[in-house]
């Protein structure tokens, strides 16, 4: 059925595709250098399982159907160009299989088309032409089969879908030829236009999955300050991988649907951030406006760095690291940190704590508590108290509760006392990278002076920074001979090893509010639930948005120090809590504790659910 022109046509289509891909390739290769290694296994596993895409059931299944419904028939048609003979039964079975797959692909594409039509907001450009083309390819294929069945009959079971089409088709060989030509032309058109339409995610998305980050999700990328980079002023300040992220985006909107800032009506949309970067990549070098203008500062400072967008992106795109890079430029490049956050940053600089209470008050919480101070003696556990644990009036109680638990479990532990400094998380998330590095290096130097096996932190933000970000610091001060645990992980160990027993009942219906930096950043979900399960009397429920979909309290990313206008994120979460009807919300983060308490307080409920740190609950139940 091939004509002499076909190889020419196919070559032309391929050449156009390659040229187009090269243009796109250059647009994202203009980013900064970055070391990334690829992962074939990861990519194959990703495609085969479709697990990440199927996180959202219906569109995930539609994608699965379309993916296999296009890929396998394409492979078979390609193989069919070589002459070989299959046993009739096998050929029939293959035909049936392809028939069903094709039908599935039609279902998939129709789902996407219908959804796209019904969806408001801003769908990505270039969706409709390739989708219609794909539908045409599938339908023309079936129609050709239908006509062919009228000319050369075949058993019904080998092509049930084709048979449906045959009922309405003529038995005309000329029409058949026409259909096949059109089918081929449509395929070639699709191939040629691949880099220019929405379908470029086939290549860019696959590449993005291939090069996906293997580091911990909670760790922010280091800033190349020695190269003179102060954050992202233009798209060229982003790395090639960050630009590839934008190239791969299909604008599915899952980031938006899970973004607490977007859901509470703030100007930020992670999707828009990525799309803006994508649009700017197409402009000539140096001609585009600053990212700070295309993406406004209101958008940048709305982010709570909760990582919901990162967790829900089916293509491993990280909108957060772009937001943070732009924040860095705002702060380091322009000196334009938000006004409300400046006193806190200054307190960090002068006093080493967010409250500006200074080192001399850092151990006030431990007054009359007999808390051992780290000295020359090696200990098992270094209890990292953190600024909230040391200064926040409510969270100090949690620190004391932790001390009670450690003493009960006869753990050899100590604190750094007045020498401890802020871990640097609020500074880093607000873009003050230089200040973060100062604090981190001071803390690391301190760690190197003492001998201990584990660091246990109460605050998930400290936990994340100590565990995931300190080891990556370039001067490599950290010996790395200790492990960093969150209090919940360590307390679970104590319970499982029966070093402590939970005896006294805490009678309440409770649910866990997953802190972002414990859950999404570090995958610590189970310990919280296991501990809650071990507390007698506690009946555990789950919130609707829980685990990896857990909803942020609104306090992370330095938002704890920023003014929030409009609907508050903590109010949204508080409403969800109130609707769930639980009597107790258990969390494991000082920010969550304050924000949820405040959110629930603002609702003026008749019976307000209590908000408590899990460590406090454990201490209450301690036998």
């Amino acid at each position: 059925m091939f004509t002499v022109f076909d190889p020419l046509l196919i070559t032309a289509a391929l050449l156009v595709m390659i040229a187009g891909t090269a243009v796109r390739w250059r647009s994202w290769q203009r980013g900064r250098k970055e070391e990334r290694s690829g992962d074939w296994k990861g990519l194959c596993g990703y495609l085969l399982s479709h697990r990440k895409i199927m996180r959202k059931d219906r569109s995930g299944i539609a994608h699965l159907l379309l993916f296999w419904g296009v890929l396998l028939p394409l492979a078979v048609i390609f193989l069919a160009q070589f002459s070989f003979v299959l046993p009739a039964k096998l050929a029939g079975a293959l035909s049936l299989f392809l028939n069903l797959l094709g039908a599935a692909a039609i279902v998939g594409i129709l789902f996407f088309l219908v959804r796209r039509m019904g969806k408001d907001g801003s769908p990505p450009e270039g969706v409709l032409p390739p989708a219609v083309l794909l539908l045409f390819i599938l339908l023309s294929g079936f129609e050709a089969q239908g006509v062919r069945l009228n000319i050369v009959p075949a058993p019904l079971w080998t092509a049930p879908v084709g048979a449906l089409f045959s009922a309405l088709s003529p038995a005309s060989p000329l029409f058949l030829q026409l259909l096949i030509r059109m089918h081929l032309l449509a395929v070639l058109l699709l191939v040629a236009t691949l880099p220019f339409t929405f379908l470029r995610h086939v290549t860019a998305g696959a590449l993005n999955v291939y090069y996906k980050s293997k580091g911990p999700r909670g760790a922010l990328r280091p800033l190349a300050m020695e190269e003179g980079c102060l954050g992202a002023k233009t798209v060229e300040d982003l790395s090639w991988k960050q630009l590839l992220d934008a190239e791969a985006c299909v604008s599915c909107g899952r980031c938006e649907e899970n973004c607490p800032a977007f859901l509470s009506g703030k100007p930020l949309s992670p999707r828009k951030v990525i799309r803006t970067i994508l649009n700017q990549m197409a402009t000539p070098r140096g001609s585009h406006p600053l990212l700070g203008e295309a993406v406004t500062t209101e958008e940048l400072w709305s982010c709570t760095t909760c990582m919901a967008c990162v967790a829900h992106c089916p293509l491993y795109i990280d909108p957060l690291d772009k937001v943070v890079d732009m924040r860095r430029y705002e702060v380091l490049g322009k000196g334009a940190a938000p006004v409300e956050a400046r006193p806190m940053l200054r307190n960090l600089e002068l006093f080493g704590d967010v409250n500006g209470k200074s080192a001399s008050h850092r151990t006030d919480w431990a007054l009359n508590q007999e808390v051992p101070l780290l000295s020359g003696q090696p200990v098992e556990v270094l209890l990292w108290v953190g600024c909230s644990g040391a200064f926040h009036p409510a969270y100090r109680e949690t620190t004391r509760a932790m001390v009670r638990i450690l003493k009960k479990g006869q753990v050899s532990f100590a604190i750094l006392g007045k020498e401890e400094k802020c871990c640097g998380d609020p500074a880093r998330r607000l873009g003050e990278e230089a200040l973060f590095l100062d604090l981190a290096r001071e803390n690391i130097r301190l760690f190197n002076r003492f001998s201990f096996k584990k660091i246990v932190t109460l605050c998930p933000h400290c936990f994340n920074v100590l565990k995931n970000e300190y080891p990556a610091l370039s001067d490599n001060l950290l010996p790395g001979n200790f492990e960093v645990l969150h209090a919940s992980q360590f307390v679970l160990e104590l319970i499982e090893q029966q070093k402590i027993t939970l005896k006294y009942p805490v009678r309440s219906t409770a649910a866990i509010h997953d802190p972002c930096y414990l859950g999404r950043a570090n995958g610590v979900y189970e310990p919280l639930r296991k501990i809650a399960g071990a507390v007698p009397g506690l009946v555990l429920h789950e919130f609707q948005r829980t685990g990896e979909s857990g909803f942020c309290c609104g306090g992370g990313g330095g938002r704890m120090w920023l003014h929030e206008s409009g609907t508050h994120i903590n109010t949204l979460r508080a409403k969800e809590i109130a609707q769930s009807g639980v009597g107790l919300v258990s969390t494991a983060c000082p920010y969550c504790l304050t924000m949820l308490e405040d959110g629930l307080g603002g609702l003026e409920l008749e019976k307000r659910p209590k908000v408590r740190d899990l460590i406090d609950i454990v201490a209450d139940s301690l036998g």
Partner: protein
Amino acid sequence: MIRVLARHSEGVFDEATFGLIAEARRLLADIGGEGKVTALVLGSNLSPESLSALGPRGADEVLYLESKAFERYRGELFCEALCELLSKGSPSFFLMAESEETSDLAPRIAAHLGRPLINRVVDLKIPRKGEVLAFRPVLNGYVFEEVAAQCEGGPVILSFLPSVLTADEPDAAKEATIRTESWMATKTSGVRLLEVIEADPGSLEIEEAPIVVAGGRGMGKAEGFSPLFELAECLGATVGGTRPVIDAAILPFERQIGQTGKSVAPKLIVNCGISGANEYTAGMEKSLLVIAINKDPRARMFNFADLGIVADVHELLPLLIARLKEIKD
């Protein structure tokens, strides 16, 4: 010999002036203890009793220059009068406390006399005879710089940040010799005083207001805030609020006190219906005198209060306002 500029409001000297005299005494001891501390007072119609308040604070001598022209601060006249005084008796230092007026006055005098001026001083040292070393914050307080000045040939002018000045306890046994001179301007001034427009406390930046009245969730909804505004008017105070109050759009964001708003340190803050969460107190902890009114006797706000009143604000405030109005009338 050290001279000190005494600042007063209708004959009432402020704490900074007493602190300045104490500082002058320390400085006098550092340079050998010889000579006198003389307070220079510029004003009109001051009573001898009010001038005698300076003696117990450590002034050896009070020189009161009287003139109708000194009713209000006027740079040219003050400068002329003070330069005349400073050129007599060869004082080695002239001390003043930083204020809007002295920021204008100090450079005038320094330029007029051709003498060194160090402003925003927080600490002093005398490294050797004839030299003074002053410390002052620069770069928004991030670093301190040392500034040296030579004492020969006339007075070194030092302007202190008032926040570092602390007065000594008054010693009633001490008395200063008081001299009164009347003064007439020799030159005609190009500046005429037409009118003095006082700042409206209601429109003051909350960070600059000396008295703040703050309301919290306990004040109720918008209409519940009217006694708060009334109280502020009586006290000449500026109104502030906690975050929920700003969220409810009762006050604009510019009036928010706390972690996500403004940090204030007024001389007096009255907290009405505020429970005192850490996020609020972080913005007002440095206030001088703190009054808290709250129904809940266990409210955390009381930990910060110099005066705590357990009462319903809506019962207490009308009484308080009525009493304040009575006193005013």
